[in-house]
């Protein structure tokens, strides 16, 4: 198989016998298995094949896939927590992420701060945007203290 952009901006998957245009990579279970089971869908949403690991796509294709995934999954990774404040059930965050600075609000942390595992905290803001804290222990002590004060 070969993955490439042709024409520009449109992901194409070519296998021995056929070629699919506008291929969409989709994680099967992005929360519980964030880097396993990647499904490649055709433009109609039908699965073409499933990769158990990204690397199974072959060295040539991994980069293209990474690029496309980064474009599709607009999650961000929290690197620093500048401030957290909880007032009347709403929590106000100010964080630095791999995509830059961001302020957001989460409501009822019981539902919107999910511990996927010991080291993986998922925050979902009121609009549904995802912010991943992973691994949690890699945060600096100040950030960690702020985080612990609410979750």
């Amino acid at each position: 198989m070969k993955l490439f952009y042709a024409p520009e901006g449109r992901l194409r998957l070519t296998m021995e016998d056929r070629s699919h245009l506008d291929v969409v990579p989709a994680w099967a279970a992005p929360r519980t298995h964030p880097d396993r089971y990647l499904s490649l869908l055709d433009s109609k949403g039908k699965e073409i094949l499933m990769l158990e690991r990204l690397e199974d796509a072959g060295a040539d294709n991994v980069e293209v896939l990474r690029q496309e995934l980064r474009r599709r999954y607009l999650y961000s990774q929290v690197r620093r927590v500048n401030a957290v404040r909880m007032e009347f059930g709403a929590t106000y965050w100010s964080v630095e992420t791999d995509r830059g600075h961001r302020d957001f609000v989460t409501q009822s942390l019981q539902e919107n701060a999910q511990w996927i595992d010991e080291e993986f905290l998922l925050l979902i803001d009121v609009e549904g945007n995802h912010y991943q804290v992973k691994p949690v222990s890699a945060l600096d002590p100040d950030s960690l203290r702020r985080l612990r004060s609410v979750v």
Partner: protein
Amino acid sequence: MQTASLTPGGASAPEIPLIDVTSDLDEDGLYGVRRLVVTATEVTVSTPTGVPTCRIALSDIAKARHDPLVSGGRMIVTLKNGVIIPVVNYSLAVSEKFSEVARGIEQLSQGEELSIDMHDELKRCPKCDRLLPEKDGPCPVCVNRSKTLWRIFGFLKPYSRATTMLVAGSVCTTALNLIPPYIQKQLVDGFTSKSLETSGLLQWMALWLGLALAGSGLQIFNGRLMTYLATHISKDLRASTYRAIEYLSMKYFDRKPVGAIASRVTQDTDRVWHFLVDGFPFFITNSLMALGVIGFLFSIDAVLAAAILVPIPFILLISVRYWKPISNMFFKVSQRMARLHMQLNESLSGIRVVKAFVSEDREFKRFDERNKAWQQAAMQADQKWYTAFGMMTFAASLGALINWTVGGMFVLQGRLTLGEFIMVNSLLIMVYGPMQWFAQVNNWFSRAMAGAERIFEVMDMTPESNRELERTLDIRGDVTFDAVRFGYDKSNPVLKNMSFDVKAGEMIGFVGRSGAGKSSTINLICRFYEPDGGRILVDGVPLNEINIANYRSQIGIVLQEPFLFNGTIAENIAYGKPDASLEEIMVAARAANAHDFIVSKPDGYDSIVGERGVQLSGGEKQRISIARAILHNPRILILDEATSSVDVETERQIQEAIGRLVEGRTTFAIAHRLSTLRNANRLIVLERGEIVEMGTHEELMQRRGVFCNLVETQRAVTEIIGVGN
């Protein structure tokens, strides 16, 4: 709401922006600002410093669309030469807006009039600039607390006489309470100066007894009055909350679990009630008392009074210092209780499934987790409160120490008589006693406010529109969809540009794979949801101009999962027409082929169906719900997979009943088994929210398109099943 509407290339100069929006992601997916401007001639995306990152002439554009991504989206433009260009990225915060913009660009590029909904949502609180939890919603921090309090008291309005009496009673109680310490002073001074005779003592004591009697009488009266008021207000509050919830649109019910909604009606109103019964009267009487006593103290000896009251500012300071965190904690407690309710509600409603999958332990674990979470929050809140309380008790006990020190010295110096000292001591207890409980008031108050805010939040949500419209309509039954677009959330369209015309009395079948949008179409016909674009007309009148209650009263629905209320069969059939006689009910039941099975039950029409109708079989429930629709005598009838869950013989009976029901009414039917739609005048075939074919059964079969395909697949499957049997 503002709707942009301008003709491209018209009077407007080419450089005037028709659309001007800001995204929150840059080309590389980093957080940053990109401004997208559409003029009559081109689309430009630029950085905050004005450097363009993308520029496309409108005349080159063939298509523009919003491409939903995870946690955001991007706008994609297809040029006339087939080239696809990603224009701009954005997070979910603005994706609804950009999906509208994409439509706008497409309209402009095709020379159409620009008509999109570019309502500017409020994202931050205009007062404190905090992000708002819900766009255009209330700011939980700035929501005016005194306003909330006034609103609670607004519920007192119908009881203004009782309220006035209560206040007057409280003032009297305060005044009465101030007299006994004065009597004590007179007595003690009389004892020490030996000037008091036995008869004088008895007179004083008679007065004291009289005061005690009057005081207690007044207290009983006040207490009863307060209870009268508080229970009435609590009832009114609950009723208004329920009413407000009933009128909310279906979108609200999609988002919020039933248990969480229910807890607003019960728990949160309870908190307000407690405050009104326990907190508020306590606060009023004791504030009055404190003021009276302080005045009295100053009239005796200003220096001593000032000295005694020194700890009071500290008590107030502690209250203020702890107020915020403690009320936050109580908010958390009430949220956790709501979650516990939700869990309870869900697992009990699904108890059959729970038992069938032997997952009692798992459900218990989930329940227990939430229960523990509540315990944690409640414990932390109460413990924090007791810490604050202990500190206040200490500050209060300082008052007595000061009095014995300073007042004692004054007595030794002869500046104060012993009687006056005793009086001050009694008065002191009257100020400091309640003072420590002011923190408790605070606690009640915080809980009540948190509850009240959740209640008012619901009351302030906009109810379904058109409840108050005057216009009513006796429906004939013509239904028109004119370019209707709809999505449960706006950036993800479920129905796209749907148009069809139905004549009164026609039977229309909707066909399509599961998820194609059949039920969604029906939801729109029932006006459970509003279309995002286009119009729905009934008898030529736009649906949003007709009173919604009037309209719905002429619609009947039979769903795949019929919902019966706990009550008798007769009551359930008569749900849409509660004053129906038993004869009418039986006529409807006969027409629904339900009469025979009903009368063969020991209690006949008076049989109790159980919660959700658990005591009946699926086919029985279905026929009762059909009888309900028949009795309702609707002009427009909707059958959503009404026969999918029953066996073939029951289906035949139901089909027969439906056959009678559809006569003379506009009917929309969805059926899984395509053969059951044979009677339909026309079929509408949906695929991914779009109409792909429309026509009679024969026409569609001849066309050998999507429908024909579906029929053949189904036939093949049926045959396979047949062989397997």
